[in-house]
């Protein structure tokens, strides 16, 4: 569904790349998570894939269309929920969706049904200018489904939503995916990524560090992490050690050998911990939900 080979992008058109040598493939029907700290190049990559940013270097095809020369009709097949909501504040929710649906050449979904789907029932005829941030975000999300896209781009679909609504959005994404829709999901929310994604890519400073399924990542890093609390001199210290990596094994061995151990147990690593482990960096933003 998506194929990216050797993608580079520089906003200043020099060698300061926001995205460097990015390559990946997304087969049809997959939910692909794109994870990385702020400024990593997630939105830039998504911008190129959707044609909002021009392709500078690399080979990219989306839904069977070469991005080098985008054909208008490609947009009938893709949907995009924007990180920052972008709906007309002077139109009502219903008018917004009706207007947008008329811009497509393919059968579109019933605007009312979509509004209800994202929990905005009863708000159809209110002008969006009076909506809260979260409500606008949900409407933007609903709009991205209007043309029954085969390829669905979601940039932070759950940001700023309360946990119950975020869970509702998550269910919608899964439901759509069950119908065979391919999803490119950008998020900071590791729980959602963990639950939804078939595979995730870790991206840092414009480069992809790793692509794998959450399940494989956990097999590799999960359960084999040992949390140790110990006394070092007079201070109480904590540490997490992989039982696979030689460096960690040596460090753990030396602690076991010479320090007084308070507690010690193995545990399942979260995706966030794996991310930190792999990239040496945190995700910066993490959500409560």
């Amino acid at each position, binding site marked *: 569904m998506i194929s990216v080979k050797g993608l580079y992008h520089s906003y200043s058109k020099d060698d300061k790349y926001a995205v460097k040598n990015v390559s990946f493939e997304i087969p049809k029907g997959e939910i692909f998570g794109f994870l990385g700290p702020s400024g990593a190049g997630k939105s830039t990559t998504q911008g190129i894939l*959707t*044609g*909002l940013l021009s392709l500078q270097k690399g080979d990219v095809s989306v839904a069977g269309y070469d991005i080098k020369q985008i054909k*208008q*009709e*490609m*947009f*009938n097949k*893709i949907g*995009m929920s*924007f990180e*920052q909501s*972008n*709906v*007309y*504040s*002077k*139109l009502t929710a219903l*008018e917004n969706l009706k*207007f*947008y649906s*008329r*811009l*497509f*050449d393919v059968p579109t979904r019933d605007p009312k049904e979509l509004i209800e789907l994202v929990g905005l029932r009863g708000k159809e005829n209110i002008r969006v200018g009076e909506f809260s941030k979260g409500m606008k975000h949900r409407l933007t999300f609903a*709009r991205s489904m209007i*043309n029954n896209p085969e390829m669905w781009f979601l940039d932070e679909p759950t940001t700023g939503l309360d946990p119950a609504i975020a869970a509702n959005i998550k269910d919608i994404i899964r439901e759509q995916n069950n119908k065979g829709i391919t999803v490119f999901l950008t998020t900071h929310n590791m729980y959602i990524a963990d639950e939804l994604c078939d595979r995730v890519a870790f991206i840092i400073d414009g480069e992809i560090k790793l692509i794998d399924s959450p399940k494989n990542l956990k097999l590799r890093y999960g359960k084999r992490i040992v949390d140790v609390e110990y006394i070092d001199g007079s201070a109480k210290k904590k540490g997490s050690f992989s039982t696979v990596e030689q460096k960690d094994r040596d460090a753990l061995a030396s602690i076991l050998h010479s320090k007084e151990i308070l507690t010690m147990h193995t545990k399942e690593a979260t995706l966030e911990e794996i991310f930190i482990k792999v990239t040496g960096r945190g995700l910066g933003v993490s959500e409560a939900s």
Partner: protein
Amino acid sequence: MLNKIWTIFKRDVKVNFREVMPLYIMLAPLMLAIGINLITPGINDTTVNIALIEGENPAQEQCLNEFAHVETFPGEAEVLSRVKERDSLIGILPGDNGYYILAQGNEPESVVEYAKLLNVFFESGVDIENSKASIVEFGETVPPVKKMLVNILLLMIPMLSGMLITLNIVEEKADKTISAINLSPTSRTAFILGKSLTGMMISLVTTVVCILITGFYNVNILLLLLVAAASTVLAMTIGFIQGINNDDVMEAVGSMKLVFLPLAGSVAGYELLSGGWQAFFWWSPFYWSYRANNIILGKEGSAGELLLYTAIIAAICITAYALMLPRIKKGLQ
């Protein structure tokens, strides 16, 4: 493509009627038109009304009827009392040596002169076939000040619709909706054309309404619309550029005000400068619009002359549009 242009057009019109600022911009010309009517006498008021004695001279009655609105009364006394009423009505009555003109004294001079002239026409046996002069004379009954004010109003209308385009673009930018449009199978050209259609329709409809309000029923409205359409193209080009370059509504509208400077300059140039100096304004589409409108409103000039002016305006405006289009398209990314 066409139905998408229509969709974009409908949305813009809807939004324009919902907001105070666009509504104000759209209503301003109509208020100005009413204002012009209040401060200058209307053209139809100056159509001369004449009172005659019924059956006194049927040949005279028939002749005058060709040039003016004739009312007949049973006798001299009735004519006298009718003339005394408030409106401008002139009596032409038989006297000792020929006819005499009966007026109240507060009628516009032109009306009295016109009545006298009509009487002379009759007495010297002139009728409408051999009197080209009477048509010119009739044209002169449009007060020149009114013609000038209406003409200036007609120049302003396209500029105001350019402002509406600016407001619509600033709105799209504030809501960040252009990126959503770009992710639909709607080309940037369709987007620009949809918005342009809004500006064009509002400009042309307002022009017609203003013409009707100010009472120019008999002019060639199609020609006026042609001139308006050409300058609307320019106004919208400026409107798009201003919208792209500004993020704030007030700022954007404020910078559109600058356009009124060449507009005023062109009008002043045409009205005040002698023939040779007029060439200094040949670059200005406002100058040509004003000149063309002047002829149309006054029902003067030949078709060829008008066509030439309209062609000049269209050439200037379409060149500007073509030069700016790539910048507009890029700006909407």
